[in-house]
């Protein structure tokens, strides 16, 4: 079991209100990603759930029981840190067994659980090494191993992949997703990388300045961002946001159109000059300086034979257009 409920959780450091008040329910078995720019309070929120920070007010309940005042050790949660936080003086085996030892488990049970976790994570050959003798990806696996052996109510991940190189990150991302599918344990994952959020999450929580901007599945957030912040944050490349006359024509303060929802066709309503073109083979990214609007990012699939300086005509897909009022809220 691993249902976590936050009720009006606040956190202040002196006069600074990092989390001004958050309500959130995380269902058992869900993979929830907290995403947002740096300093948005996502790590603080995770640390509040972990018990590593005390809440200023509000209630954190785990499986229906109030855990607000419980120390981290008593909450039954496991955490994987950005720096891995392995114990450098212990072997991999002892690192993974540490939480079991703290729980007072018998040596035999410890050994068998460590063996099992090592097998799942391909660490069997490294059990007698120390963390200093492992690569970044292996250390990450040990940190995950240490988290899974005790069968926690939920896993907390604090930007676990940000110290890995790009190729390894993609691999570990998939491993963590597979781990979630096989364990079916609640996972809360903090990242500033919206690609990680989109690919891994059942549910994304977008945070900005300590406030929850929107909660929803990746595709919900992609299709129906409730405000400009979410619209700009989710999706890569970013959504084009257009203000002024073009927006006013559609009865909005700002309109948004994703790069992949702009077609390059003759006779479109917008015309402009190609500034930059990036040809990836599978996709082509164009930066187009559109007359009277400004620079728009356009993504076309496949190879598009347009180069710097070419004139192009563009048409936004009408049903994919997002409209926002002057407060930045989405209007239907």
């Amino acid at each position, binding site marked *: 079991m691993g249902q976590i409920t936050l009720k009006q959780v606040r956190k202040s450091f002196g006069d600074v209100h990092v989390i001004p008040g958050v309500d959130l329910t995380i269902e058992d078995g869900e993979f929830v990603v907290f995403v947002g720019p740096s300093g948005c309070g996502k790590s603080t929120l995770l640390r509040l759930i972990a018990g590593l920070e005390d809440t200023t007010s509000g209630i954190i309940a785990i499986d229906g029981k109030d855990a607000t005042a419980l120390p*981290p*050790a008593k909450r039954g949660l*496991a955490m994987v*840190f950005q720096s891995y936080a392995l114990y*450098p003086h212990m072997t991999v085996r002892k690192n993974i067994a540490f939480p079991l030892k703290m729980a007072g488990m018998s040596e035999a049970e410890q050994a068998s659980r460590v063996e099992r976790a090592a097998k799942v994570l391909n660490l069997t050959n490294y059990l007698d090494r120390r963390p200093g003798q492992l690569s970044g990806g292996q250390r990450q696996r040990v940190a995950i191993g240490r988290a899974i052996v005790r069968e926690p109510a939920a896993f907390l991940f604090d930007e676990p992949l940000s110290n890995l190189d790009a190729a390894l990150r993609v691999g570990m991302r998939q491993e963590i997703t597979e781990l979630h599918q096989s364990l079916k344990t609640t996972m809360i994952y903090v990242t500033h990388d919206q690609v990680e959020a989109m690919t891994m999450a059942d549910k994304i929580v977008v945070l900005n300045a300590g406030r929850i901007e929107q909660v929803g599945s990746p595709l919900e957030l992609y299709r129906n961002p409730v405000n400009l912040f979410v619209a700009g944050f989710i999706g890569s490349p970013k959504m084009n946001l257009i203000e002024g006359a073009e927006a006013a024509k559609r009865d909005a303060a700002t309109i948004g159109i994703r790069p992949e929802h702009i077609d390059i066709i003759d006779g479109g309503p917008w015309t402009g000059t190609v500034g930059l073109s990036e040809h990836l083979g599978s996709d082509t990214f164009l930066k187009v300086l559109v007359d009277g609007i400004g620079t728009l990012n356009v993504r076309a699939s496949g190879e598009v034979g347009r180069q710097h300086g070419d004139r192009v005509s563009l048409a936004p897909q009408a049903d994919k257009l997002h409209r926002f009022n002057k407060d930045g809220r989405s209007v239907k």
Partner: protein
Amino acid sequence: MARAVSTRTKTLNTVIAGTLGFLIFFPILWIIILAFKTEEDAIRAPLEVLFQSGWTTDNFSTVQARSDYFKHFSNSVIISLGSTLLGLVIAIPAAWSMAFVPAKRTKDVLMWMLSTKMMPPVGVLVPIYLIFRDTGLLDSRFGLTIVLMLINLPIIIWMLYTYFREIPGEILEAARMDGAGLKEEILYVLTPMAVPGIASTVLLNIILAWNEAFWTLNLTAAKAAPLTAFIASYSSPEGLFYAKLSAASIMAIAPILIMGWFSQKQLVRGLTFGAVK
């Protein structure tokens, strides 16, 4: 980047450095030489001492016969080890709290502790002497252990604080997440990681306590007197016996020199801990 240095410059530098080193070492060398001379030879002109006198080991046996070396030695061991270990028991929790849960005034407290080392000890001799007299701690190993622990405590806390600060907080948080209470966290995670730092703190403080002379001379008479008092007893009051004084000095400093020699690697490693990542 390597700089080009001519052989002449190198030779010159080596000679200058060697000479300076020898000059600094000379008094100790002289003590070693005098320790193996008779009292009559020891007060002769330096060149005569070197070239026109014989060698003898009588001084060492005389010194041992006159003032029980081993009693003073064991006092020194008990006082320096005892004060260091007692200091650790107080300093580890103190340094832990200051390094990992600092409060607004933690820096001030640390500075205040250090400031006690800036005060000349003689400034508090009278109150401490009176306290010791009235509580019957004069000339007791226990009293001396307490005093040496207290005067070295700021250094122990400062050193440990510096080492603890090098330990990433996330590792301790990981231990907390893994179910460790405060006791387990300090015992299984913090202390093993801080072992190099703790070891050099221990070594340095044993040396400091071993060599401490002001309090040991003022607060002891016969029973609790350590080796510093043993050396001092050969100076002025009975007239200067250079040869015996030298022999006593060598006997007093040899143990700590030998310990320092064998632990120098650990000491240097500990003292430069964290300086180079």
